[in-house]
């Protein structure tokens, strides 16, 4: 079923996608993508003329602001059969956010290259950082009774809107029902902050006169109160993993706010605000109940340019322009950083957006071709090529933040255990036909991984130029390097050919296709005897096997690698810590690396790139740390990244000025109106 697109990227950390570190950094796009340098293997289907030259798609589509036509109804297709959850606090599906991003505005805005500017916040900056650990909070901790232990995890009776933020590590060992546990809950967090114990503090001030769709004004109280909605929601872990406390120093009716994190975190700036800001009337609505399909009065209300007009289960979602949109009220010139032309409008110009639910990519292609929809994304690669080649359509692409990686089971088991040897891991990595995978499976619409982070994350991930790193000897080869692989195998203690199993999830056809190409390549090298296995659909596989303790053992014994995909954000930590840190709980996404797999030096380096007072305060220091980290990561070869996605969006030629944003969640809201890139689309219908 092709509707099963990329389940991993549908369950990503939305915060990362929506916000990003504001750092100026030149990142050039051209030249690093595309499929021009094909291999010289004559049998290689990559030589086929089908592979698209995507250069044009990466260029921005400009519009003449004087020719903008206002009004009209945009037909926009999302690849799902309905909105999963209209309640932004509860929703975890990427497509929901794509739509809701037009309803809710954020504190900051971000362009396609990861640059950040202030949006609803008039002031917003990191103010202080302290190196603190859980023990530092001890004086403020209260004791709570464990009412139940389920699967080794204690549960407490804390009441509504409350949850445990920091638990004393000593009290967690062998915890039993009835035990008393010391902890900081949301109730004690304020005391700790007052006592000066916190990680990072961010200070900010909201722009005045921003109106919600219900006519109330956005104040600091709305910001502070919005956190309550995430308690007990599916997004609880995401919001409260770093967040400690929020205050409104000038009172709830004021505009200033202060946000505190639990430890010094370079990500705090992005991680601390609530994902969406809800008006006061919604603060008491339990997570998940803000859904007009269940109760027609429960309509999501934000400060964004569009409001929800009409909703019908699995059929209709109509958005209409919000009359009192704050940017229009204030004028785009009121944004300090804006230096665009006067003719650039003060808000989006399209009156209505009709969201169409089209789960099958083939149907989206057909509907786009027929003119039933104006804009679609996540098209199948052949269709994308046809639209790209056609004069009647426009396809825009930009380097994305999704990636696929192969993880090696590094346990040194008696049987198998080949991947315990660094050389073997590196040899497989050297043989990954990254370019061919992109050329054949994605038809050119992707980016073979050359370094362990994608272009959109480059700003914070290196002090140098992104593509200069390709020449480093630690970079990944785009084409299989047989010589290197052979050398590595010779250096190892094993004899070629080595039996290996390449595994990936069963419910992603493209991923399986890429791995089929890898298997063929490994076998062709004569160094490996490889087989492809697709044990189960992603969720079943990860929870049933990969994330279990036996999973790592079994995979090591069978020499079985695992390939899954993830979507991260503009922050490099999503490509480093997220897939390496042994502390990452729940195994995502380092299922083969329990405590002790990596030496302390590596782990310290890894963590020092994000956590700590020093990197929180100094971005250049952070970049330098990452410059040290990447060679260590590829050298270690615990994971090897296969490719990075290219986010694309396709529209018909009645849509003018369409450009893609790296994050699919921002595709619609960015296309409609983004002053940071002077981005706007308008409809120019033929009739």
């Amino acid at each position: 079923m092709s509707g099963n697109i990329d389940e991993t990227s549908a369950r990503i950390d939305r915060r990362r996608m929506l916000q990003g570190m504001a750092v100026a950094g030149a990142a050039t796009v051209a030249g690093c993508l595309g499929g021009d340098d094909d291999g010289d293997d004559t049998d290689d289907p990559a030589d086929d003329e089908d592979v698209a030259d995507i250069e044009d798609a990466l260029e921005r589509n400009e519009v003449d602001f004087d020719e903008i036509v206002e009004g009209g109804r945009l037909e926009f297709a999302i690849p799902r059969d309905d909105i999963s959850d209209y309640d932004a606090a509860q929703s975890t599906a990427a497509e929901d956010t794509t739509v809701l991003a037009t309803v809710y505005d954020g504190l900051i805005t971000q362009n396609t290259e990861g640059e950040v500017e202030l949006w609803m916040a008039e002031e917003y900056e990191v103010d202080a950082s302290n190196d603190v650990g859980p023990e530092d909070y001890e004086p403020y901790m209260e004791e709570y009774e464990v009412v139940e232990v389920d699967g080794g995890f204690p549960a407490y009776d804390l009441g509504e809107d409350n949850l445990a933020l920091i638990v004393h590590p000593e009290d967690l060992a062998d915890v039993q029902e009835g035990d008393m546990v010391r902890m900081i809950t949301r109730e004690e967090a304020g005391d700790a902050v007052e006592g000066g114990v916190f990680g990072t503090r961010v200070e900010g001030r909201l722009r005045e006169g921003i109106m919600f769709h219900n006519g109330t004004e956005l104040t600091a109280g709305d910001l502070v109160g919005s956190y309550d909605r995430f308690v007990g929601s599916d997004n609880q872990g995401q919001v409260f993993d770093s967040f400690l406390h929020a205050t409104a120093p000038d009172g709830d009716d004021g505009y200033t706010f202060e946000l505190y994190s639990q430890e010094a975190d370079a990500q705090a700036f992005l991680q601390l605000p609530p994902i969406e800001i809800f008006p006061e009337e919604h603060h008491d609505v339990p997570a998940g109940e803000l859904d007009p399909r269940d109760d027609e009065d429960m309509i999501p209300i934000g400060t964004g340019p569009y409001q929800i007009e009409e909703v019908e289960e699995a059929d209709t979602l109509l958005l209409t322009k919000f009359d009192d949109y704050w940017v229009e009220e204030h004028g785009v010139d009121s944004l300090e950083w804006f230096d665009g032309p006067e003719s650039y409008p003060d808000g989006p110009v399209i009156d209505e957006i009709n969201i169409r639910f089209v789960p099958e990519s083939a149907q989206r292609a057909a509907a786009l071709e027929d003119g039933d929809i104006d804009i679609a994304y996540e098209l199948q690669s052949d269709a994308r090529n046809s639209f790209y080649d056609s004069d009647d359509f426009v396809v825009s692409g930009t380097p994305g933040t999704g990636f696929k990686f192969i993880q090696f089971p590094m346990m040194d088991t008696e049987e198998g255990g080949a991947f315990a040897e660094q050389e073997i891991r590196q040899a497989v990595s050297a043989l990954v036909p990254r370019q061919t995978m992109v050329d054949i499976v994605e038809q050119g619409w992707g980016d073979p991984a050359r370094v362990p982070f994608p272009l959109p994350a480059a700003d914070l991930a290196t002090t140098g130029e992104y593509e200069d790193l390709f020449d480093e000897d630690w970079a990944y080869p785009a084409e299989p390097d047989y010589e290197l692989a052979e050398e590595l195998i010779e250096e190892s203690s094993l004899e070629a050919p080595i039996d290996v199993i390449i595994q990936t999830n069963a419910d992603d056809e493209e991923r399986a296709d890429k791995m089929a190409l890898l298997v063929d390549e490994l076998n062709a090298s004569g160094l490996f005897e490889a087989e492809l296995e697709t044990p189960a659909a992603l969720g079943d596989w990860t929870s049933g096997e990969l994330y279990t303790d036996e999973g790592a053992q079994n995979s090591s014994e069978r020499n079985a690698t695992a390939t899954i995909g993830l979507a991260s954000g503009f922050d490099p930590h999503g490509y480093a810590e997220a897939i390496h840190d042994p502390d990452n709980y729940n195994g995502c996404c380092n299922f083969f690396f329990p405590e002790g797999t990596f030496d302390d030096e590596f782990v310290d380096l890894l963590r020092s790139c994000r956590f700590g007072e020093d990197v929180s305060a100094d971005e250049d220091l952070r970049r330098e740390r990452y410059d040290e980290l990447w060679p260590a990561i590829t050298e270690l070869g615990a994971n090897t990244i296969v490719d990075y996605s290219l986010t694309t969006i396709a529209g018909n030629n009645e849509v003018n000025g369409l450009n893609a944003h790296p994050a699919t969640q921002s595709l619609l809201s960015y296309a409609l109106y983004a002053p940071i890139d002077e981005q706007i689309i308008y409809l120019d219908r033929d009739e």
Partner: protein
Amino acid sequence: MSTQRGRIQITGFDADRVEQPDEAIWGDDEDTAVMSRRQRIIQQLIRDRFALVGVFCVLLMIGAVIFSRPITVAGIVVQPFELVPYDVTATGVGDRYEPPSLAHPMGTDRLGRDMFSRVLAGSYYSVTIGFIVTGIASTVGIIFGSISGYFGGTVDEIMMRILDVVFAFPGLILALLLVAVFGGGYWQLVAAFVLPGWAIYARLIRGEILKVKQNEYVLAAKALGARDRSVVFKHIVPNAIAPVIVQATLSIGTVVIGVAALGFLGLGFTPGTPEWGTILDAEQDTLMSGPDADWNWWATVFPGLMIFIFVMSMNMIGDAINDALDAQVDNINHGGGG
């Protein structure tokens, strides 16, 4: 006149004087009567031209199952032939989406794999699962139905309620749930189709047994006491088996479509498996590939056509067997009812 009835008597019409009837004159009706079930089926298959084509197609596909790829049992090669021109998983043996040609009679797929080899090898999954499922399901069903029909009473009542539960799931939905629980794969699919599949046989055989039980068998059983269990299995079941044979032949097709449907829903086999439904699932995007694009029809037409041809063949054969075993149906009424 009626008063005279019975008063007339005729003598001299002595039947014993008539000699034994001459075979040649009496025609071949007797042959038909004693013809075994198997002979009737074979004769019907030959007479029915549809069925003959069906038999031909099924034999071809069984040939493909056996000879398309070498078969090894416990490490020993029992069948060394390899009829497929290309390795079914080898990528890039042709260009991406090459139309049918002499080198690739069914074209190539998105990874440049040879469709002909894949489709040919794909018959293995559908055909063998179809037969295995039907074999197991009918055996289980016959045993269950026999026990239920034989014991009757409370046992029968309980066993029939179990059947009702199975029948309350449409077969595909139960299979869908089972595959979701146990995962895809060959034997999982067999199980997923056996579990809803046996019920129909159980109901059939039970109905037949009840019918037969109403006849002299009941009396015989009662008279003979406990010895009747063997009667059920030795005499009743074989006599009641005709509808089971027909049902089995027809349901092979149903199973094959079901397996392919799960493959199509992405729940049957792992992607890349050359199973027909799985191929269709992977290639269905080729149906709509945007403006001015050619339809790479071979990627979806051939796998679907194979399912269709196989199921159609089995149904035509089943039809013919039905005709052969069911004497009432479609027999010419000699003498037009005189």
